[in-house]
């Protein structure tokens, strides 16, 4: 079983369509240790097959496996790691939304993710799931499987708001850096326990690992039937029970991705023949900008937005900045328009990729909110 990835590769080569590969995956029940089916959601605009076929890099090679499907094997040749594997890219029912599937060890996947996938921005954008979306999906998984399985949370990668506000303030200029703590937590708690604690302690999950234990006549098995991982950057994996878990996840988590792509579409002036679109807003649950520290923290977060140039026209008492995405060539104006709302104003060129990256960055590093089209009182 050294080579479940090779087995997948063999299947991909002979497959007539995606269904054949997915059926094959559904029947795999015996994964080697630390091996998973990895699924990564992404946004791509264009012909993804030809884009991947033409990718050139000194760090990796991709070779197309089958003309019937978008599938490749990869060789990563770095000094510290030389790995190979296979993946396929399944289009969703919604154009521009794709899911990459691979079967490999977690280590290989992380290298593949880091060396190949994450470097493709702005062409490939890894999509973001909000905590509320993830928890809804997790609850649904638990509910769907409750007659036969018990769900326990095994590991959490968390971000937590610092409790000691005084300590935060005393750090002066470093306030922004000290606002949150990030850490890993191992647990054996139920989902509802974890969610309650997260709410109470103002925690965000970056990644959640849960186990499903078989239940029979009220007896719960000690060995988990499946280990699953979900990260906020559009990633899900499991090492068993794929055909019963993933459809639930997919049903719950594909629609918000689709909605956001639609919301971000055709926003730049140029692609609209210079007829302006409405602005977008991120609305937070609470009036967080009433707190001047939070206001400053937002400004600090924007200052540190990577791979971009920023211009701050005003930062006190109101906030107005311009962000240009160096990797994508887009630009967006940001305003804080009231105590709970950030306005995102598209400029001459503002792509879906750049909006997704910026919104995900704000959600991940500042606060999650509801992103929607701006509604004016004047309308």
């Amino acid at each position, binding site marked *: 079983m050294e080579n479940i990835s090779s087995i997948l590769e063999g299947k991909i080569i002979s497959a007539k369509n995606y269904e054949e590969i997915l059926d094959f995956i559904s029947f795999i029940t015996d994964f080697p240790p630390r091996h998973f089916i990895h699924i990564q959601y992404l946004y791509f605009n264009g012909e993804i097959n030809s884009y991947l076929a033409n990718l050139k890099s000194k760090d990796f090679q991709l070779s197309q496996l089958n003309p019937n499907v978008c599938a490749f094997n990869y060789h990563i040749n770095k000094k510290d790691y030389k790995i190979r594997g296979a993946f396929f890219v399944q289009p969703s029912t919604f154009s521009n939304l794709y899911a990459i599937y691979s079967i490999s060890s977690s280590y290989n996947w992380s290298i593949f993710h880091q060396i190949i996938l994450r470097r493709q921005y702005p062409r490939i954008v890894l999509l973001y799931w909000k905590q509320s979306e993830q928890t809804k999906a997790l609850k649904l998984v638990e509910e769907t499987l409750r007659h036969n399985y018990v769900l326990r949370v095994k590991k959490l990668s968390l971000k937590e708001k610092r409790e000691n506000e005084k300590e935060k303030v005393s750090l002066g200029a470093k306030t922004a850096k000290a606002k949150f703590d990030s850490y890993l937590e191992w647990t054996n708690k139920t989902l509802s326990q974890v969610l309650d604690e997260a709410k109470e302690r103002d925690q965000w999950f970056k990644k959640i690992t849960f186990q499903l234990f078989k239940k029979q006549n009220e007896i719960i098995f000690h060995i988990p039937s499946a280990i699953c991982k979900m990260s906020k950057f559009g990633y899900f994996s499991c090492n068993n029970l794929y055909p019963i878990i993933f459809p639930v996840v997919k049903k719950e988590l594909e629609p918000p991705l689709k909605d956001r792509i639609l919301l971000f579409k055709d926003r730049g*002036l*140029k692609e609209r023949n*210079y*007829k*302006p*679109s*409405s*602005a977008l807003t991120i609305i937070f649950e609470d009036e967080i900008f009433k707190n001047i520290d939070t206001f400053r923290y937002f400004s600090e977060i924007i*200052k540190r937005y990577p*791979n*971009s*140039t*920023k*211009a*701050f*026209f*005003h930062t006190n*008492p*109101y906030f*107005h900045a*311009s*962000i*240009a*995405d*160096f990797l*994508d*060539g*887009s*630009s967006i104006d940001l*305003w*804080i*328009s*009231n*105590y709970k709302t950030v*306005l995102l*104003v598209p*400029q*001459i*060129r503002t792509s879906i990729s750049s909006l997704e990256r910026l919104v995900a960055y704000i959600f991940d590093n500042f606060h999650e909110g509801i992103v929607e089209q*701006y509604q*004016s*009182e*004047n*309308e």
Partner: protein
Amino acid sequence: MKELSNNINQKMNDTLKEIKENINDYITTVNALLCFIALTTWENEQSGGNYYCSFGRTMTTSPYNSISANTDITPDEVLQLSGDIGFVIEAKISLPQNKDLWEDLERQLRKYDDDLIGWWTENDKINKSNSILLIEISRSEEFREYHEKLIQDGKYSSDNRIVGIEFSRADQFSNYIFFRTRWGHIDDSVLDKILRYGKKKDIQFAESKYGRIKFNDSEPEPEYLLTIMWQDIFTALHREVEYNKGLKCYPLNVDVEDITRELQRGYGSQALQKNCNIEPNAEREVEFPQISWVRSALDILEKLKVAKKNTQNNYAIYFNRLRTEDMVKYFSKYRKRKKEPPSEDQAQISLFSERDLKE
């Protein structure tokens, strides 16, 4: 030595602060002009009425003008609504400290209070019009007193159609512009009533209906123009060229006219014309931003050693991701020292500075 260094830093900070205040005054003025279009035309547009509006349109005074007959004027904004009513608007976010200079503004408003020629009608004339001063709220009462004293003193007649409308950012977050009449009456009973009680207008709403306007016909601080060019145009352009290892940058070859047209289409005169039913390049229309502003801004990039002037209309931009926290601050570096303090005549009352009082 340390003290000297502190002084230099302080001066640089003061200069940057002043530049940013000027930029914000400029943005607020443009937003006020845009929101005033939204306020006066939206109801009209809903009912299917035609409207026209323009920044800096050239109008001509009549032979009977009380200040200057048969001359061309360029008000900040000219607005025409479907009921054959027009507004000629001057916007002021600040006033000169020296009150003697305020009379220039009064004369300007009286010059606009005329049967002007240049409206979007068959004979270029209009039945009803108002000369409107849009004035920032902190200066409105003072100027109203001044305006009324001139009338009381018999210097000017009270029989006029001049209206003073104060404006302000509606709250600390500035997403709205609030308007309210301080003196005079608008020649439209519905609008007159609305403005008497005051009305706020949403900037984003105005932008989505009438164009994402960032400029008017007066030249902004070059840092503002440069920031928009760099962020919104050069950053997109650099994606189309290969990185040059020798030059260690993305070399962009830019044509001044192309850049100017793109700014006009996105944020300037063409954007406003497109959304306000104005024929582009019409005789009385003005272009903004202007080619000369763009050229001056690019000359600053040359001073900053990120551009080279090839010809009068062509520049090489050495584009890179500039390692700076704030592009406005970066572009202000060409100002080697703080500007000389303004003379008494130029000095401003408020924190705001103002570029000129146009006659």
